[in-house]
């Protein structure tokens, strides 16, 4: 196979040359790194990566190919949404051959199908160090023609990834309204496994008009402050005493709705190995994370407390209302990819609905 050269250009002018192994076209976005050692099909289909050029620190990508888009009750069995959301993929070594019983195609074919450029042969460790030191930067993968810079943080990314009309899943005891800001399928799976009916609604839908037992605010891409409608709806929902759980962007939106502030982290947390401490205890959990923004805990109102804290950098990993059944995690208890050690948070949520005893 003829190798086609491609390059990654960063905002600061630096260029890295490698070979294209995805779509033969150029793209732009924000370059971010992820240190996970597997789970590329999950990451690539995670709507939270919308607009981002993903740099994989693990050097070998593509080993086990890509599973097909089989669905199970409207939800893809192996993907986190119905398509690839990243703007580009950067790896050290693309494994041209793959081997797995569950694979239907190679990563390369999949990327080409979804028109996502990808580049291999780069020193992703050097790149990661650069991003770590300079903070996240805009980047472009140039395969053929040059393209304009795109800053995804200035776009309404949530709007791009959220569903347009509400959908209902399952037929369980507890009715959950799931606000889709770019929800990962595994959140839906985790809730459905717990005897729920899910009404998945668009990010700007006025869910306060719905009758529900619990409200769930999903993960999603971009700057949380852009989601003004969602925040306003949340303020209303928080006034009543029904349980609310949020994940990732959901955590930030709850914070903003409570009156607290959020800020952009220099290079975010994107990995499967982030330790979080359940505040006030000796319990530390390994979590899967993918976020560029965080809650400024100094601005949290008095009736809120920090639920989880990052054991490495002390940033906010979750908040909880002191009296109401409202809480959120900055990390991903639904994992996929990554460790599922905190999946019990879904049980906590259901426990709040059932008014049984909870741990947190």
């Amino acid at each position, binding site marked *: 196979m003829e190798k086609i050269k491609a390059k990654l250009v960063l905002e600061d002018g630096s260029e*890295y040359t490698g070979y294209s192994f995805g779509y033969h076209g150029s793209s732009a976005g924000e370059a971010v*790194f992820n*240190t*996970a*050692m*597997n*789970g590329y*099909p*999950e990451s690539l289909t995670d709507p939270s990566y919308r607009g981002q050029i993903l740099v994989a*620190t*693990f*050097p*070998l990508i593509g*080993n*086990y190919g890509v*599973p097909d888009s089989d669905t199970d009750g409207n939800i893809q069995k*192996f993907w986190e949404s119905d398509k690839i959301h990243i703007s580009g993929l950067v790896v*050290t*070594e693309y*494994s041209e*051959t*793959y*081997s*797995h*019983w*569950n694979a239907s195609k190679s990563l390369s074919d999949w990327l080409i199908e979804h028109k996502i450029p990808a580049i291999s042969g780069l*020193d*992703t*460790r*050097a790149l*990661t*160090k650069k991003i*770590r030191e300079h903070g996240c930067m805009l980047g472009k993968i140039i395969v053929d023609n040059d393209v304009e810079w795109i800053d995804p943080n200035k776009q309404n990314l949530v709007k791009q990834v959220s569903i347009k009309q509400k959908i209902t899943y399952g037929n369980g005891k507890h009715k959950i309204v799931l606000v889709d800001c770019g929800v990962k399928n595994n959140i839906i799976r985790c809730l459905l496994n717990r005897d729920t009916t899910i009404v998945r609604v668009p990010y700007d839908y006025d869910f306060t008009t719905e009758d529900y037992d619990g409200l769930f605010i999903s993960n999603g891409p971009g700057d949380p402050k852009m989601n003004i409608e969602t925040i306003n709806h949340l303020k209303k929902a928080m006034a009543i005493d029904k349980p609310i759980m949020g994940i990732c962007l959901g955590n930030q939106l709850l914070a903003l709705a409570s009156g607290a502030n959020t800020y952009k982290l220099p290079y975010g947390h994107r*990995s*499967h*190995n*982030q*330790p979080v*401490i359940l505040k006030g205890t*000796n*319990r*530390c*959990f*390994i979590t899967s994370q993918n976020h560029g923004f965080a809650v400024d805990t100094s601005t949290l109102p008095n009736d809120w407390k920090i639920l989880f804290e990052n*054991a*490495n950098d002390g940033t906010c990993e979750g908040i909880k209302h002191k009296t109401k059944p409202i809480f959120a995690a900055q990390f991903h208890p639904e*994992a*996929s*990819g*990554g*460790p*599922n*050690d905190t999946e019990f948070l879904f049980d906590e949520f259901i426990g709040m609905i059932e008014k049984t005893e909870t741990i947190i």
Partner: protein
Amino acid sequence: MKNQYKKVLVLGSGALKIGEAGEFDYSGSQALKALKEEGISTILINPNIATVQTSKGIADKVYFLPVTPYFVEKVIEKEHPDGIFLSFGGQTALNCGTQLYKSGILAKHNIQVLGTPVETIINTEDRELFANKLLEIDVKTPKSIAVESVDEALNAARKIGFPLIIRAAFTLGGQGSGFCSNEDELRTLAVNAFAYAPQILVEESLKGWKEVEYEVVRDRFDNCITVCNMENFDPLGIHTGESIVVAPSQTLTNSEYHKLRALSIKIIRHLGVVGECNVQYAFDPNSEDYRVIEVNARLSRSSALASKATGYPLAFVAAKLGLGYGLHQLKNSVTQTTTACFEPALDYIVVKIPRWDLNKFQGVTREIGSSMKSVGEVMAIGRTFEEAIQKGLRMIGQGMHGLVANPKLSFPNLEEALTHPTDQRIFAIAEAMEKGWTIEKIHELTKIDIWFLYKMQNIISKKNHIETMKSLDEMDYELLLDAKKIGFSDFQIARLIFNPEPKEIEKYQIKVRNHRKSVGIQPCIKQIDTLAAEYPSETAYLYATYHGIENDIKHNSKDKTVIVLGSGAYRIGSSVEFDWCTVSAVNEIRKLGYKSVMINYNPETVSTDYDMCDRLYFDELTFERVLDIVDMEKPIGVIVSVGGQIPNNLAMRLHQAGVKILGTSPDSIDKAEDRQKFSEMLDRLKIDQPRWKQLSTFEEVEHSVDEVGYPVLIRPSYVLSGSAMNVVSNADELRDYLKLAANVSKTHPVVVSEFIEGAKEIEYDAVANNGEVMFDAISEHVEFAGVHSGDATLVFPPQKLYFETIRRIRKIAKEIARELKITGPFNMQLLAKNNDIKVIECNLRASRSFPFVSKVLDYNFIETATGYMLGRMPNSLPPSMFEIDHVGIKASQFSFSRLSKADPILGVEMASTGEVGCLGIDFDDAMIKAMLSVGYRIPSKSILVSSGPLRSKIALVEPLLLLQQQEFTIYATKGTAAFLKDNGVNAIPVAWPDEADSPNSVELIKNRQVEMVINVPKNLSRRELDNDYTIRRAAVDYNIPLITNARLAAAFLIAISNKKVENLELVSWGEYFGK
């Protein structure tokens, strides 16, 4: 955290053996470091005197005693510790600790077991308890049903489903085992199996499943992490210690990875492990089905590998957790800023490859399988599988240069070589690929995951491409860079392009190097930082890769750097003793204010702990890579004399490439290494040596033997893999040897040396400065010459050498040191018969016995030697060996029980896998401790003797008379019995194994009617050999202590007659020196 423990006892693992090797020096050292940091007083019991953990400054008190309940209890009574760690000394410590717990001794002395509770250990050790325990939480283990009839077997098969594996219970060597895939096959197999045993196990067959391991850590707050997962390249059926292993797993999806990870955590929680634990899975390659094969509730070989692979100090952390810390309360010692409660993210891949030494053993099969035979391992780091595997195959040190461009191996039946794996299977795969076999076919035969095979195919394709090049200029930049990226060495490229004569290859290798440097292709130095660059890290744990555009570290021109070359994979003849030497050198370098750089690739070592030196390159000890690192580090010099033979062999080439070698000059090293030059030098100095000749024809050999007289020592001068040295005693044997072992020719001559019978062998270790011997240590072998010095039992200070002998040896050493202008450590082996001294060998480097003599004298020879090499004078010199008030004995550990069918015999080829060194108030005291430490038990009633040649028979009379006085029943084979009777020993004559009479020697062993077997081989006549072999092998297989050397047997029997175990001195190392 307030610490409740004041004094903690740590159990070591004793001598290195197959399945229990250097990894426990690493884990014990880290545990002791962790305890020290907490201000806890530490006591270590470990007879392995060559370890780093038994060195000064690591434990507060060291006992060189057997790790057995008796001795541990004695130490407990003396020291009154309040806590004990059982999980850092392998199976030895675990077994000993479990016995102490079960017998109530720990409770009696009010000692807390730190870390994982003993109950948990018991639950993981017993197969049935283990399966039941996991069943409680719905975790699957392989289905297995024990049956006692063919009908029951068929019923069991219906329950479990085919395919099945049938195993006969209680048999050795897998007799009566096999696979079956239908009822007919099962019936046949079962009938056969019942011929061997009354009970058989019907088990589901997991043949071809993947094997995956997780290293799991849990603290007392129930926080759990998995530090690393590892995937075996070889599918299930090959012991993980025999498998090529990669970390992290390469063919598992996120869902599979986390399914097994979650199970591991579930298991560790249910079992209640506090500290570290390893979970091994069989994993279906066609679904997400799994079985848990094993849980090791202690630090293991895998955990040592995981530590090195990730940079996560598992043993250190496990020790802290045992003291009550939570994971989140500890720091990540690599970054120093983040928490230890995390899971390392790797941005590279590691490949572990076992090192076998099977050709060192007679009679052993090369096939690898469910039992471990390898003696060491290497870990290669790269950013692709290809880069790492090629590095690893070079590191193994069996004459290979990677996957390709190797000396030709022959696989007469390639299909067989793929289906029945041997230590060379990976090369059989390469051969099949070169022959054009498809990946699918190779996968069918090997069941190795196709992903790995594709990657190997990449190497083969690249090789084919390079081979079409006629010159370096023809090879474009991209091809050369690609070749380097998939692990091709300059040597391989040189061979593929130029295919020069062997003696020319080095020249071409340098040509490739210069060319690639001129076009700007050089490796990058990357850090292992546990977090894939997410956080900055100052720790210089490094490797080289061609997948990079920048180095992670900067060279500081103000640094005065000294590079120490490590000792590579543990193998027979080179193991932990050289790790001790390199660690001692590195410590001294730092102490003297230089920056120390270590190069080594053995994951079982302390020298590869990143906090031992200023910069650790976990990389190859090849000419190419050492030069790369020298280019990077610009050292003031390189030390080649403390890491054994590998660095020693590099000395001359590095020197010629302009690298400054510290200490003795490479020219001198060459003079000692080159047999011809060395011999001429001895002649010139009028120093005696055994007569020898290098000969290249059959006739020359026979003629030469006529001159010297039998027996002679004969060896090929050019050895490809493993040597084939032997003693031959007559013309028949000589002819056999020449036919079988050596292909005599001009290019492959043999060396024939005079073999002196009944001579004492002496080990001389010394340190010199500018050609002057500064101090020395002289040890004597208990056995007569003919037993390899690595297998012999050493006594230091010597108890039975003539003063005259010592004086002459020193004179010889003085002359050699002056002639070769030695600076640094050196070693000589000498023969002494009636004060006639002959030099057998001289190595201008540290030897195996340096740690032993250093510790017996409580003076580190290597530290001072390192000082001399850097031009520093020591503050003190060691005490004279004549003033030492104790005796040290170094005894060898054999692993024959692991090597099915191997003849447990000692000869001129080394066969031991480890050693111990014990101190005692006198010879007998030290002797008993040392022998008990390597697994001997003291007989009290009965012994079987077959005493070999006359000299041996005579040697055994006195000790057997002593046993007779103690009312022993002495059994002896016929000839021996008759001889003993004539000399006053009433031995019961027993029949040879191939005779029908009773009592029969083998039956005595099988029925455990004898507590010890002494079998001294007489000569090599066929029948005798078979019978002797059967007796020796039975002793090993039935775990009856065996001694095959009359001198050693006599010394041991006299010692146990003179001294009872209760009267042994229980003195710590320091106490021998009044500390």
